[in-house]
């Protein structure tokens, strides 16, 4: 005889489960656990907005408070996904505005969010607290204005607290109402009015507005003044992607009345001279993004700034730094010992100035910087920042033919040698060698994310002129916990053999201009057990490997292939064989059936879904399915 706990107990136990994986696991135990779990799931993460419909999500999880969702494939960041492809948020917000009136948080990445969506959010969710739009597009500052305006002190009625006082009033009211019988409804209104006066509960409203790298139609900075005076709940504001000037006194007042503000990222239009006043109003800041970091060099401005920074004792992260005037960098030095995260990826300053700043930051864990830092700077970084976990080096002149700075593979090798905690790397450089990669692999077997971009496609080992297969092979062989890998340089099928054999924990792989034949793709699909996302461009991979590993695709979130050799015929076949996949052909040359079946498609995006084909595709996208004729005119 099985005893089961009462529902409330199980619900309480489940409330300690925070990861989707755990919650999904408990919901598989038995029907009653499934039921209990789905009623108490509060956060939903949807990695591909087309993998499921809003209705299905709402039906299964009726009381969601936090929605996190991603839309376009990653290669959309590099202009490989044509405009209009999809990832519209509107159907979701329309459905949720009805189903989830208590929704609190929306976090989106690479989705199309319109002003209508933002207005709907501000109108529908009385308890709305957090909006994070990462690399999104489709909205303007007018939409932001409606979000800001909705940050009002909401009023509600706490019925539980009210009851006794209301009871007394009801007695009085019933006596009164005998005399006001004619105005039958009046007592009723008075009753509710009194209840609300007795038991007002303030809802705290908007806490986070984070526009992280979104593309916003910037009509004016006026949206900021739509935050009502009563809004004092802001914890995080990131407007760094906007271009227009905002009214500084409005901004100052907003900051001054937000005692819980932890993160403030300004946009480029905020001049350096305005920073001290802002900082004075928010000495509790933990993350701060400056605006343009340049001004005429004046000692009063400098001293003002330096004093303001020294009053901020909690700063852990800094960003912004457009157009840096190096003379103003020392104003930051007081914060450096606490800094763990530094984003200097827009700072066009020389290695020596970067070095001076970075060497003060002994507790640095994350550094994003331009290649102006050069090998010498990275060597010094390796010597002074022993806690470094993540390094991203961006190219200052990605399209130039010749190197403009002295940054080579040596910089990365130094950091891998000197920083024992290094686990995440994004590195753009112009030359690489197998020897360097082997050294990096041996130095840092704990590497988790390794993304290397050698700027020239198919560049060989510059010392031996061989492919870089051995080097990357060493990476996957030594770094057993590697979860993300981006390849570049000259690579043959051999590197894919290594990856298939060793990269068992690899979840995301990005490949460009690599490989010789289908065998390469076959190694990946048959060998990488944990693979979830695969994105490939300009590789000679065709039908054979794809069709032979079709079932693998159902275990992954998505596969992107562009400028490869997959034929239209193979796409159709795949679509027919695999009903649980959406096989989307993206081709701006016109309908694929106007060309021979053997003709390779331009772009291919395959993803698993329970939603079936989507109906919001633009004219250059076709879904291959059982009734594939339906897709064509």
């Amino acid at each position, binding site marked *: 005889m099985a005893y089961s706990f009462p529902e409330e107990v199980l619900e309480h136990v489940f409330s300690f489960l925070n990861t989707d994986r755990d919650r999904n696991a408990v919901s598989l135990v038995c029907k009653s656990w499934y039921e209990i779990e789905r009623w108490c799931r509060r956060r939903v993460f949807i990695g591909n907005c087309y993998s499921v419909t809003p209705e299905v999500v709402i039906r299964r999880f009726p009381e969601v408070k936090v929605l996190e969702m991603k839309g376009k494939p990653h*290669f959309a*960041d*590099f*202009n*490989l996904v044509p405009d209009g492809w999809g990832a519209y948020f509107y159907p979701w917000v329309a459905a949720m505005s009805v189903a989830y009136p208590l929704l609190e948080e929306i976090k989106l990445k690479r989705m199309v969010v319109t002003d209508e969506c933002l207005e709907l959010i501000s109108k529908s969710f009385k308890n709305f607290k957090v909006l994070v739009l990462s*690399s999104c597009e489709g909205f303007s500052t007018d939409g932001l204005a409606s979000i800001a305006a909705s940050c009002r002190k909401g009023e509600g009625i706490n019925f539980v607290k009210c009851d006794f006082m209301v009871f007394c009033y009801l007695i009085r009211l019933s006596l009164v109402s005998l005399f006001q019988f004619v105005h039958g409804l009046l007592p009723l209104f008075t009753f509710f009015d009194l209840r609300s006066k007795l038991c007002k509960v303030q809802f705290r409203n908007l806490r986070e507005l984070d526009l992280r*790298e979104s*593309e916003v139609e910037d009509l004016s900075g006026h949206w900021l003044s739509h935050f009502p005076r009563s809004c004092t709940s802001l914890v995080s504001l990131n407007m760094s*992607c906007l271009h227009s000037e905002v009214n500084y006194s409005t901004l100052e007042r907003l900051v001054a009345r937000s005692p819980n503000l932890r993160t403030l990222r300004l946009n*480029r239009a905020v*001049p350096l001279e305005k920073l001290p006043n802002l900082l004075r109003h928010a000495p509790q800041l933990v993350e701060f993004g400056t605006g*343009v970091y*340049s*001004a*005429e060099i004046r000692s009063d401005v400098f001293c003002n700034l330096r004093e303001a920074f020294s009053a901020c004792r909690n700063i852990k992260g800094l960003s912004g730094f*457009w*157009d840096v005037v190096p003379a103003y960098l020392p104003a930051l030095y007081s914060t450096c010992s606490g800094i763990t995260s530094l984003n200097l*990826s*827009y700072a066009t300053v020389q290695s020596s100035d970067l070095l001076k700043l970075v060497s003060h930051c002994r507790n640095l864990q994350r550094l994003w910087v331009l290649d102006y830092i050069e090998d010498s700077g990275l060597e010094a970084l390796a010597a002074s920042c022993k806690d470094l976990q993540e390094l991203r080096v*961006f*190219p*200052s002149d*990605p*399209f*130039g*033919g*010749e190197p*403009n700075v002295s940054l080579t593979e040596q910089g990365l090798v130094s950091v891998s040698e000197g920083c024992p905690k290094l686990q995440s790397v994004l590195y*753009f450089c112009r030359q690489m060698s197998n020897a360097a990669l082997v050294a990096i692999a041996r130095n840092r077997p704990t590497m988790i994310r390794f993304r290397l*971009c050698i*700027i020239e*496609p198919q560049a060989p080992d510059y010392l031996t002129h061989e492919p870089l297969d051995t080097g990357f092979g060493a990476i996957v062989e030594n770094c057993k916990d590697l979860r993300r890998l*981006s390849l570049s340089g000259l690579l043959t099928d051999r590197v894919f053999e290594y990856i298939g054999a060793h990269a068992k924990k690899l979840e995301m792989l990005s490949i*460009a201009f690599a490989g010789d034949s289908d065998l390469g793709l076959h190694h990946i699909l048959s060998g990488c057990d944990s693979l979830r996302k695969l994105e490939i*461009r300009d590789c000679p991979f065709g039908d054979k490997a794809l069709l032979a590993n079709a079932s693998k695709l159902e275990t992954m979130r998505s596969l992107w292939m562009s400028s490869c050799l997959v034929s239209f015929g193979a796409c159709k076949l795949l679509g027919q064989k695999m009903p649980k996949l959406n096989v989307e052909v993206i081709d701006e040359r016109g309908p694929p059936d106007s060309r021979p079946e053997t003709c390779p498609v331009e772009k291919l995006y395959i993803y698993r879904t329970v939603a079936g084909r989507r109906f919001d595709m633009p004219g250059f996208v076709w879904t291959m399915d059982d009734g594939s004729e339906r897709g064509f005119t």
Partner: protein
Amino acid sequence: MEGVFKGDENYLNLEATELRLGLPGTNESSVTKNNKRASPESGKKIGFNGDSAPKSGDPVTAQPPKAQIVGWPPVRSYRENNFHPNKSESETGIYVKVSMDGAPYLRKIDLKVYSGYSELLKALESMFKFTIGEYSEREGYNGSEYAPAYEDKDGDLMLVGDVPWEMFISSCKRLRIMMGSEARGLGWGA
């Protein structure tokens, strides 16, 4: 500003008698757009030959322009747009008219070519053959008959040099070199 200056001692006499279009006293200076340089930046987008940050000491080496591959290197377009802020306008440059009191024709210059006020003022000085005095916040331009002014987005006449350079470029609609008594009203002198 880089120009091809043929005006040295040996040419002066010929120049004086040459029939040219141009303001009296100007040297034959080429258009400041970088198109004239022998080495187009390789790998730039098709149709765009200039660059936003003139590199110092670049040797004039002829390089075949590389065809740009879409999406490579994989730098996010967001980052590109923010790093080179005027990328979307950069194909055409920011051309503004420059008028000088008393001159028969106006000139046009590309503000994007200059990295700051000093370069701009030097260019104006040589284009129009005059000297601007020294700039100070309090007194404007001291020591000369001329004051550089510009018309901003709101149509107001402003003295050049008060606001940060980036802000100036984005708000300047036209330049005007004012002379003599009119210039005094803009802060020149007491």
